[in-house]
């Protein structure tokens, strides 16, 4: 097998265009408030990119990505909350020095599993490792037993339900239904003013591109090829001697880590984390971001997340009743009429007019086709 280049010409141009949109266009045309809003949308793009790898490339539909988003978000929120809860700031509490919601729930000492979150290093490690380990356990248990498809979807959805109930039920440790709020500083740097939000927007964009590059590298690697082969004919790959489950576990863990980074950036930019971002409904909405963008396209996922969230904000501001109808219609339309989403429309209608970008590909089209079932 010939080693693939990391970027074909048109893919490189696509990345460059997205970079221009995120780093130049948005900051230029949006005011600080809207920019922060778009930064929030971009945190969902992390999840969508992870889903492109899991679902688009690997055929694993997880309806529990919100769990990983939430784990990352809560890790970051715990760190920020501890920093905000200095004994001086919380002097009016009956136990100063612990987060306010713990005090309200008659908890008098910081629980032991909160302790390590005093350290930023540990927090960043936890943001990457906790969801990945969790995904590893879940994925290993399921994929080793060859559970996939709809069963996997249902079980991940149940996990999302469990996570929400747990977070809401354990109010004293998690802040309950309100979530963890009133976050102030990161290592002494105030995250609340507009200038900080602009900085965070750019950090967010850079991290997103880092994830996109990793995802692109995975897709172009041998593992990426095997994932696509698996999606088409899993048994054939298995009979060829590949350990199918390991590849699935790997991509599922990677997707979880991406979602978690997104969650952490969400907390930083929005200033709180709550269980409404974790449960069944947000998790399945994250899938639609990916589906609208095109389940096979990394860049499409970013545009999908931006577009759907922008539509959500716009419509639910002015016509709240229409939004649910619109979202429901979107789910149906994207499945029935545009299964490849925005990327599919680009492939069908725009790309043919841009022949000069992929002349090389046109010479050997047969090599690209997957074998018929």
């Amino acid at each position, binding site marked *: 097998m010939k080693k693939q280049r990391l970027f074909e010409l048109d893919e490189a141009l696509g990345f460059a265009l997205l970079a221009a949109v995120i780093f130049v266009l948005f900051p230029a045309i949006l005011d600080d408030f809207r920019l922060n809003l778009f930064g929030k949308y971009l945190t969902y793009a992390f999840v969508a990119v992870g889903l492109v790898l899991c679902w688009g490339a690997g055929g694993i539909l997880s309806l529990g990505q919100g769990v990983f988003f939430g784990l990352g978000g809560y890790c970051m929120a715990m760190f920020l909350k501890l920093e905000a809860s200095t004994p001086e700031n919380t002097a009016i509490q009956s136990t100063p020095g612990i987060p306010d919601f713990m005090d309200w729930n008659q908890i008098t000492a910081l629980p032991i599993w909160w302790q390590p979150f005093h350290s930023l290093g540990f927090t960043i490690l936890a943001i990457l490792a906790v969801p990945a380990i969790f995904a590893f356990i879940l994925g290993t248990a399921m994929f080793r037993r060859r559970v996939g498809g709809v069963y996997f*979807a249902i079980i991940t959805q149940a996990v999302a339900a469990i996570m929400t109930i747990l977070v809401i039920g354990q109010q004293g440790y998690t802040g309950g239904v309100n979530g963890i709020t009133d976050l102030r500083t990161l290592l002494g740097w105030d995250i609340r003013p507009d200038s900080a939000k602009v900085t965070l927007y750019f950090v967010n964009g850079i991290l997103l591109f880092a994830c996109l590059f990793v995802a692109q590298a995975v897709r172009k690697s041998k593992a990426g090829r095997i994932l696509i082969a698996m999606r088409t004919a899993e048994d054939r790959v298995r009979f060829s001697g590949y350990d199918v489950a390991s590849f699935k576990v790997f991509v599922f863990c990677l997707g979880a880590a991406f979602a978690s980074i997104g969650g952490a950036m969400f907390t930083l930019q929005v200033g709180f984390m709550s269980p409404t971002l974790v449960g*069944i409904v947000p998790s399945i909405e994250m899938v639609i971001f990916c589906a609208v963008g095109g389940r096979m396209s990394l860049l499409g996922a970013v545009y999908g997340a931006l577009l759907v969230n922008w539509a959500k904000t716009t419509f639910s501001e002015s016509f709240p009743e229409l939004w649910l109808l619109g979202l429901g219609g979107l789910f149906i339309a994207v499945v029935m009429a545009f299964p490849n989403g925005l990327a599919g429309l680009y492939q069908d209608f725009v790309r043919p007019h841009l022949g000069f970008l992929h002349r090389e590909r046109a010479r050997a089209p047969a090599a690209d086709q997957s074998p018929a079932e």
Partner: protein
Amino acid sequence: MFSGYSMSELGAIFAMQGFAGLILFSVFVLMALGLAIIFGQMGVINMAHGEFMILGAYVTYMVSHVFQTWLPGLFGLYFFVAMILAFIAAGLLGMAVEWAMIRHLYKRPLDTLLATWGLSLILQQIYRSVFGAREVGVTIPDWMMGSLPLTDLIEIPINGIFVMVLTVAISAAVYVMMFRSRWGQQVRAINQNRVMAGAVGIDTERTDRLTFGIGCGVAGVAGAAFTMIGSTGPTSGQLYIVDTFLVVVFGGAASLLGTIASAFTISQAQSIMEFFLSGSMAKVLTLLAVVGILMLRPQGLFALKLRK
């Protein structure tokens, strides 16, 4: 955990919680039966199942109003009319959905899942526009009010008994349909081998549509029964959907008996734990146990021995 309770009190607690569990069991069975037909036999994930149920509940709500206004003399009987209408309404909607959407997606189960989720959002919004965002309740007929005192400590509400009797009746009806009727035979034949079933002259498309319709109709009846023990809001259906899918998967997707057994296990475990722990922890532990068992035994409790 048990200190501070006398023996007889403990017995009463277990009996009452056990009974609460039986009502929850009825709820799970009613919801899961329709799903067991649609998911178990056809392999279609219908995320809008809860909304079909709620449709049945709203039909009951409307019928009760009609009886209150025009036929107050027959009010005690409205529920039976409502149940039939709920079956028809949900069934017809189900068949329409199958025709418009599901039949194009049989080969893409994950996409069906997303499309039906979209459908559930649309239905929720329609309910909200038509019936308002607030939960509505029906007036329960007099003969269903009150409770039977069994001993000094144990009281059993009559509407709970009614729902349980109804559950048994509906389960029996579904069993007869699945295993004694021509339609049931065709459904099972298609489930085992679609191509072969078509080859021996079964109209698979028609059977699929009918199956989906009947599954949704059963959900509608379940919704009608729900109005006897709780109120109905536009999003009530969504609350149950995860539990219901777990019940069906846990029982072994293609097995009706498994569905009932798993509904019993899950509901009893949950309601007995609810007394000693907070409600949310009981739920978390139950769901965790179910997910854990499913990881060890993905085919569920009762797996059909079938070559795929």
